[in-house]
């Protein structure tokens, strides 16, 4: 399955290219407007083409991600999907309480995490050993906070709160809490 590393690599390339183009364009523009040029005002057709381009980019971004990022449709339809495994996690007083010391997931399983907050608004995120993020969600008190995720890599993950819950929350990390095994 496509994972966050791959998606973010794609985003990095796309955004970097865009930044280079826009920097070059502005540098060129700044140079050109200080030079005398032909009396040629910008044509309205160029303007309307630009508007059309913005509309296409704005809409197509979400269509492209819907078709290429697997967790997007999974998330939108999660109420109708049955998970292979389910874990109920509770957060209270800036502490995670897991159903067991280590959560074991079989490779390829579709897993649902139900996370409940007993007091504050927290976050729930999975991170790799190199600190890169696999996914995250917000955890609100008094509400159902669930996420579905397919694990197809043999890896160990840490759990971390991804939302600020006061200065007491900075150590809300459970190292190597999840093992994906064969």
């Amino acid at each position, binding site marked *: 399955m496509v994972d*966050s590393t791959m*998606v973010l690599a794609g*985003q*990095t390339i796309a*955004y970097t290219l865009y930044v280079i183009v*826009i*920097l070059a364009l*502005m540098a060129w*523009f*700044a140079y*050109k*407007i*200080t*030079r005398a040029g032909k009396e040629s*005002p910008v044509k*309205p057709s160029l*303007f309307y083409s630009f*508007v059309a381009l*913005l509309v296409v*980019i*704005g*809409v197509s*971004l*979400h269509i492209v*991600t*819907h078709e290429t*990022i697997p*967790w*997007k449709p999974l*998330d*939108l339809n999660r109420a109708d999907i049955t998970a292979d495994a389910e874990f109920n996690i509770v957060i209270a007083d800036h502490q995670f309480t897991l159903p067991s010391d280590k959560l074991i997931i079989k490779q390829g399983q579709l897993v649902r995490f139900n996370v409940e907050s007993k*007091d*504050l*608004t927290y*976050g729930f*995120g999975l*991170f*790799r050993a*190199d*600190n*890169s*993020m*696999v*996914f*995250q*969600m*917000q955890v*609100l*008190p*008094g*509400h159902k*906070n*669930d*996420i579905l995720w397919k694990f197809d890599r043999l890896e160990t993950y840490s759990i971390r709160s*991804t*939302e*600020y819950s*006061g*200065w007491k929350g*900075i150590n809300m990390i459970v190292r190597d809490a999840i093992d994906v095994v064969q």
Partner: protein
Amino acid sequence: MTLIQTFLRGEKGLFKAESLTPMQKLALRFVVVGLIYYGFVVFEGVIMRIYEIQPFSYVTHEQFFAILTAHPLVGIFGSTYAIVFGAFLFLVPFLMKKPLWSIKLANWTLWLTTIGTLTFWLAGFVSHYSPLYTLYWPLPADFTQFSVLGGTFFILGVALVMVGTLFFVLNIFKTITYTPEGWEKQPGCALIKSALGLTGLSNLFTRKKQEHLVSLPVAAVARGTVDMAFNAIIITFTGVLILIYMVAALFGENLQHSLIDALLYKNWFWWGLDLIADGLVLIFVAGTWYLLATLITGKKLFMENIARAALFVEMVVSWTVWSHHLMSDQAQPGILKILSGEMVTAFELITQGLAFFITLATLWSARPLKMTPPLKFLLGGLLGFALAVPAGIMQADLGLNRILHNTQWVVGPHVHVAVLVGLSMTLYSAIYFLLPILTNGAKLYSEKLANIHFWAHLIGGIGMGAFMGMAGLHGMLRRTLYFNGEFNTYMILAGLCGALLLLAFLVFFINIVMTVGLNGVIGIFSPAKIKTKDLLPKTE
């Protein structure tokens, strides 16, 4: 003149504070206050940048988060609001060619926002009250972590700013609609319709077109001010709610947090809060770009009618985009995430893209232009939003938000590039442009220092955003601390760029003080000797 003489009397002694009208003094006081608070923000930013590399013992974790809480609020309310208030309270009557409705009320706005900002900043500094600007329920009322008294003063400080803001709103709309003494009766209703864009809207459906009674920049100010009013109401309402919990706690009663639904609260608070980031900032900035482009070039704005319509669309869009802040909230209805979070938010790419294109096309029509500080900073501001808006559109996608939310990506390439490069450089452009008008012809001390200011700010702002963004793409969260140097390469580079921003501010500050002189700065705050409602002194 010697250096000391210039420092005391300003460049060539041209600035005479006693020649200023009350309105000029008012606008300059707002700018001075705004710049002092900007200095606070830059200094706090540098402390936090160093702390992100290696936490040091002089600042506790509690204090760090108190700084993190105050930093954006001082930046927005203490600095940006002050400069915007000063500029628009001067420019709206200037463009409407009539006096400000009430200088007295404008002075109330100045002192309420100044004292309010100082109050909440001090409350955070002393008590370490740190629920962040997001105030996610029930954190602001979590008295196991925060001082009730500190929090009470913090909220009261914010409330003072909001009252000052509402006075500004009233002053702007009254200035647009009122009839000055001795004038022919002004069509108040028609003026307000034109300012809000209702005239333009009805023109779409009628054959007999009505003329626009207010200029485009005034229309932009009016529409942004609507968002400002809604924002002030929501923040005040939320503040009152939090104060109820605080007052109860002071009397020994602990109200249940569950009385307030965390998701509903998050929706209304983000609806109001987002009216700043995705509303008034974008509308005010677009209006300022249009004004500066026409003033710099002396040409008519390219596609003015479209620009007017886009400002109206932007206002409506700003009322419906808040859900992009709740894309990672699983209890938030999916339909809101898609419609408000993804689709309507994508409109910001279009409206801001239009403003970008229209401004560039207007500048293009006046070639060749001299690369003056106002033009240079205007281009910097345009570049800032051209970089930051697409970054924001990316994170407002359900798929990408899952792996970007609350990372340094959000606060780097999006927030800091938008605010530091886009917004601040636009404001600097306006300051450089208005300086001779507001000071009756004071001459900028050094173009070379203005150049250093430009490059240090541009490279520092974009660089800092870029390195924060790279850290975010590798998983670094915002609003937390790392103790083992996990992201130090990026944080050191971001810190160096932060130092450039500090350098830029110091250079600018020195340049301005040397332009008007220390005596001039003090003179700005002394009572005006000319008693007039006119904006500028009468020329002989």
